[in-house]
């Protein structure tokens, strides 16, 4: 017992070292969203392509929905764009855009140039919906289930690897939930 106590400080230091070492490899940008598990915030905004057409949160209900926050000022959005075009072909999900703090003409041109993967893009010039969603940059992608509950928030670019690792399992789970009717 006496001998064990002598080693206690060493053991404590090693334990502390292990904890701190683990901390080195954690990504501080990797934050859980405060909104996961909450309902999609209410909004009334126009679409990007039609400044007359008003859309609200009700327009997103019923399907498994992806909301992709994008802008023309965001270089990473350009990187992920081809992957989004691919994802849009997947009938399991509906992909909507949230054009965040952008200019209408430039954003419309972007969709003409690079193909429009979105069912429609919500035009959020002031970033009000972005604020309610806790968006702090672009790109970000939210997964909303068929009840309108936010199930995931992903900050950063989507590519094939990220899609397989981060999104596919959740979407499979959501399809299962929808089938079971809860």
């Amino acid at each position, binding site marked *: 017992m006496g001998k064990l106590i002598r080693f206690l400080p060493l053991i404590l230091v090693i334990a502390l070292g292990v904890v701190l070492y683990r901390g080195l490899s954690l990504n*501080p*940008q990797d*934050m*859980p*969203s*405060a*909104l996961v598990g909450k309902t999609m915030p209410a909004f009334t905004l126009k679409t990007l392509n039609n400044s007359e057409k008003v859309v609200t949160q009700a327009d997103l209900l019923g399907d498994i929905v992806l909301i992709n926050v994008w802008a023309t000022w965001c270089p990473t959005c350009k990187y992920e764009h081809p992957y989004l075009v691919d994802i849009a072909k997947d009938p399991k999900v509906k992909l909507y855009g949230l054009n965040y*703090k952008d200019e209408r003409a430039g954003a419309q041109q972007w969709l003409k140039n690079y193909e429009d993967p979105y069912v429609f893009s919500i035009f959020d010039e002031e*970033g009000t919906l972005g*604020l*309610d*969603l*806790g968006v*702090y*940059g672009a790109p970000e992608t939210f997964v909303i289930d068929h009840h309108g509950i936010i199930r995931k928030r992903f900050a950063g670019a989507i590519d094939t690897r990220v899609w397989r690792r981060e999104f596919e399992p959740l979407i499979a789970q959501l399809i299962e939930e929808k089938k079971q009717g809860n």
Partner: protein
Amino acid sequence: MRLLSIFIVTLIFSLSANTALASPVDTYEFNDEVTKIRFQALSKELRCPKCQNQNLADSNSPIAADLRRELYELLQQGKADSEIVDFMVDRYGEFVLYRPRVSELTYVLWFGPAVLILLGVFVVIVVVRRKPVDKKTLALSAEQQEKLKNLTNDK
């Protein structure tokens, strides 16, 4: 002497100019002094979600500017400090608070140091109050005395 005072004045001006450049300048007008102080206090208390080691007052990033504007508008609407903090936490999570709330998740953070100090005090008390080892037990038994005698005689 005159040269020196000019030098000092220039120095002071250049210093103040530097600090003005270093942190963002907003031109918010406040109706009263209290609101202004509350704005300053809250923007120091809230953390910028993008540039994680800066508060809203320090950061130049667009999101920090947006959140300062939101903070200003919430203050103008007459919201209480706690309501404003709740507003930010609802959207950006506990992360935006530089002083985290007391909850199950932060018990270790809040009470850990106090517990460690108490533990240290306890250890010190135990060590100090431990009775000195009895001299009698240190003395050799008759058998051992005999053995020692034999050993020393061997020489």
